[in-house]
């Protein structure tokens, strides 16, 4: 299906990532956005407020993030494509209902513009420390899809992709961007509507009496319906059977919850998108996502000038994680270098998938800024030279760490 020309603001723009994402959502056919202001994601919501009424998309600023995400759930069952927009603290508040959305297999998109944390942290500056939260933040077992764009153009493109994935797999899709990308202003090309491919909602078309809200198709994804269509829906967040009725049997529980995880795990190959450059025969591979991948480019350049064979692997989809690809690359490379703006999150998954076949070096950064490319370059050099296996994830000591703690806080080992 193609996008509706009315929703698409075709042209070339000079806008920031937040706004691009808002325009992307509308282009993808999103007709309901609930939000609550939180730095640094507000601009995306503001963009929807400006443009939404002109394309028939309704927006509401709810009383809090709990309200926003719940309204999104309701709107999805009312039959429209929806999204909500938030940042760290709001994301934490939403967790309960995100789990509920996963349970009800509600297609929705969540734009999280990450900032420095934990708690209130540094609201106005960047961070990438919600990555694990996006995967594990709600209670119980579920799987989500998380995408990490690295430029305003990608914010536009991948917001559309996020909507498509959400509709395709009926699961929460997180756009895990960060303040840098959100507030970065660049050229964004919005194509014509007929160049934008849109995934239609998987609606049920059969007779009303036979509808089962949670009866999966062969690809494990059930068909959706909307409230008010005379289907007599019974939808509950409790563990339920195919009709949606709550069940108490312990055996059923695993079958049901297992499908929630399996529909993503078994379709992994179709979901995962990676961008690789020079990974074949590389001595060191830099694994990165979001803004860190753009910073890493410079570090890789420096290292290549020094004659090190460096490849890059960019995780466009961070969750589900490309286990097999990393394991494969671990066989041929010496080490992985993972720069991320946190003190180690995705790097643990990289380490897990290497199975001891390659060293893993983390280049940490606490947030409120991005890496110094020289740190990345130095880490690459270190990884290239280090022959013996390192114990666990090796945390690289950055210039920032040295400058902050030298002479200051002494660490007792």
């Amino acid at each position, binding site marked *: 299906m193609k996008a509706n020309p009315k929703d698409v603001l075709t042209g070339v723009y000079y806008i920031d990532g937040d706004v691009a994402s808002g325009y992307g959502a509308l282009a993808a056919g999103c007709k309901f956005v609930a939000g609550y202001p939180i730095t640094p994601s507000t601009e995306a919501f503001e963009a929807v407020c400006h443009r939404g009424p002109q394309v028939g998309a309704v927006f509401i600023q709810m009383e809090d993030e709990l309200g926003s995400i719940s309204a999104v759930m309701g709107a999805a069952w009312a039959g429209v494509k929806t999204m909500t927009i938030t940042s760290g603290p709001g994301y934490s508040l939403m967790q309960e209902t995100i789990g509920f959305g996963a349970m009800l297999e509600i297609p929705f998109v969540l734009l999280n513009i990450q900032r420095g944390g*934990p708690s209130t942290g540094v609201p106005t500056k960047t961070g990438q420390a919600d990555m694990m939260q996006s995967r594990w933040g*709600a209670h119980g077992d579920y799987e989500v899809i998380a995408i990490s764009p690295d430029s305003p153009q990608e914010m536009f493109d991948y917001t559309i992709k996020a909507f498509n994935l959400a509709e395709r797999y009926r699961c929460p899709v997180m756009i895990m961007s960060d303040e840098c990308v959100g507030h970065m202003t660049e050229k964004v090309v919005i194509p014509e509507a007929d160049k934008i491919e849109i995934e239609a909602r998987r609606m049920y078309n059969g007779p009303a009496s036979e509808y089962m809200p949670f009866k999966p198709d062969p690809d494990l994804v059930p068909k959706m319906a909307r409230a008010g269509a005379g289907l007599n829906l019974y939808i509950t967040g409790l563990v339920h059977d195919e009709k949606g009725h709550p069940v108490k049997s312990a055996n059923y529980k695993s079958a049901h919850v297992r499908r929630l995880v399996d529909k993503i795990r078994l379709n992994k190959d179709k979901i995962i998108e990676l961008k690789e450059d020079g990974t074949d025969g590389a001595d060191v591979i830099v694994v990165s996502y979001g803004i860190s991948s753009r910073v890493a480019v410079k570090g890789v350049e420096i290292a290549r000038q020094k004659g090190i064979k460096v490849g890059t692997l960019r995780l466009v989809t961070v969750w589900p994680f490309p286990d097999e690809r990393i394991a494969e690359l671990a066989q041929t490379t010496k080490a992985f270098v993972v720069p991320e703006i946190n003190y180690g999150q995705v790097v643990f998954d990289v380490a897990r998938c290497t199975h001891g076949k390659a060293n893993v070096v983390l280049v940490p950064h606490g947030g409120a800024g991005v890496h110094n490319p020289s740190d990345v370059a130095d880490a690459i050099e270190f990884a290239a030279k280090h022959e013996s296996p390192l114990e666990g994830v090796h945390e690289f000591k950055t210039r920032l760490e040295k400058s902050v703690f030298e002479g200051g806080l002494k660490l007792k080992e």
Partner: protein
Amino acid sequence: MKADKTGVLTGSHALTGNEACAEGALAAGCRFLGLYPIVPSIEVSKRFLQRAPEVGATFIQMEDEISALAAVIGASWTGKKSMTITSGPGLSLMMEHLGLGVMLETPCVVADIQMVGPGLGLPEHPAYGDMMQARWGSHGDYEIIALSPSSPQEMFDFTIKAFNLSERYRVPVAVMSDAYVAQLKETVVIPSAGEITIEPRRYFDGPSDSYLPFKRDEDLVPRMVDIGQGYRFHVTGLTHDDRGYPIMFEECQEYNVHPLVWKVRNYVEKIVDYQETSIDDADVVVISYGATARAAQKAVTQAREAGIKAGSLKLNTVWPFPEKKVAEVAKRVKAFVVPEMNFGQVVLEVERCSNGKTNILFLHHGDNGVEHTDGIIAAIKRASGANGVVGSTVELK
């Protein structure tokens, strides 16, 4: 320091895990409970409320879990040891304030009686689906400590331990139990107050004008004062310096947050606690925690009887993860069997720490009853016949 007598109900009792948790809290000196009722954790607060008048403990039932944990953090700064008690959906709501607890370095205990999730799930049915959430559920970078008891006696012991660790490292500590252990009634031996060691709060005792709320000691943990003592300090959830004033630069972020991670990571070896059974000559080691550990230990015994060299590693602290121990054992066993009451959470850590040195068999456990050992024994049998190393986790259906 020894426990305060008033809270310790010395003797041998038949208690459910929930009741033992409440008793453990009171014995540890907990004097404030902020709660919002949620199945299956009700009995903890019920017991606490019943005992509160005689012990002199205060409680408040707040309007939701968000405010329950907020009140607990506030109460902790008044000098009272504080806890809250919840279950899956409540824990999800508490996530933001778990981060606040970390940032304000407030000692407090969160007991999570896990049920089947996500969403409303199956209340009253046991599961361990919140294990990763306890570690990663709040935004931003931090480390916390999580204990996982497997019996009412351990509910009592670990709750005391949780308070001690919380005061020692000034982090929120989670007690990750489940609906099964919480409702299981067993003998709980409560020792006399003199036999219970309590970690006192790390107070600052210098003059009020020289108090810096986040000035770290050598061991990275800052000292605390109670409010109402004339210190008139300021603390904030924003990135702050030693004075507790917000300073939002990347240097300060590094200065503030990196030690939050270090203060747990650097002391992993001191914090981690596990129980190993016949590991030394084992071919197959079952790694388990919580209620599953009960079944795992039975299975290991039965496997030994059947002539398989099986051993058990029971994780008492799940977070921080005992990386070194697992890495070390991985080098000398054929396989790990990891039964979990979820679809694979802690097993990912096991896979990471074994560095491809051994096979890992994951088993979704608990559907046929928590103490059902057949699946684990089958897994042990299969693992003992393994040849070569697969590397990635294999799931047994």
